């Protein structure tokens, strides 16, 4: 009976983790938003003169918010947004995501005007790294849900 009860708990955690898995279209929108944010200066440089960086940054943020909104609307559950606090296994990948995104954004910003080739290389390296780190964050969150380690409140 005890084992049965614990098995049911594990089964529900598995089901929650399955439902918490992000759909493929989220990753498409997330990739667009990440490339837009990390490469905003470079993209702005390639567009016609007089276009402000905000014309790249704002749509990228809107795409990200749209992806979040669609996920919340379609999956029937709401997970904690405090990834760092509530998902212990997701701390390291969250830091790596921030490092990759911010470092990439910085290098692209500094080099876009003087060395666009370096900026392209920085974008090609940093954006996939940031996306890979976010995929790792997602895997870590699902592992924490399955193990009952989430500290939502």
């Amino acid at each position: 009976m005890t084992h049965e009860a614990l098995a049911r708990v594990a089964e529900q955690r598995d089901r929650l983790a399955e439902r918490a898995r992000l759909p493929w279209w989220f990753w498409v929108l997330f990739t667009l938003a990440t490339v837009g944010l990390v490469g905003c200066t470079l993209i702005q440089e390639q567009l016609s003169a007089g276009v402000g960086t905000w014309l790249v940054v704002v749509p990228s943020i809107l795409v990200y918010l749209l992806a979040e909104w669609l996920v919340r609307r379609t999956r029937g559950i709401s997970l904690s947004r405090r990834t760092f606090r509530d998902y212990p296994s997701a701390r390291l990948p969250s830091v790596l995501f921030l490092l990759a995104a911010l470092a990439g954004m910085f290098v692209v910003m500094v080099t876009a005007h003087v060395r666009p080739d370096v900026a392209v290389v920085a974008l090609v390296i940093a954006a996939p790294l940031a996306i890979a780190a976010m995929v790792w964050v997602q895997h870590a969150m699902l592992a924490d849900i399955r193990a009952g380690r989430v500290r939502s409140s």
Partner: protein
Amino acid sequence: MTPTRDPVFEVGPRLAMGALLQGAVWADFATVRDAVGAGDSVISKHARSLEDAGYLEVSKGAVGRRPRTWFRLTDAGRTALESHLAWLTSLSDALRAPTGAPPPASSDR
């Protein structure tokens, strides 16, 4: 946290509902019903019992024109569930132990 048996979670699908809600902030009625595999009336009945115990917060709203009910474990519910799960785990460990370890304390509330 002291492992404590909580009879509230020993009736029907309440433990399953709690386990599902433990990892989420909110879950909607249909998600809980589908995951637990019980009917609407069963989920409603046990949700009311958990709400009466102060373990569940029920919120009604709408997505577009569709009415929706959302469930969330309260802090008291979360603490009680964690404590009950710790009790279940220690009991399970004690039952598995080859040389009869003392069973965990049980306190009915």
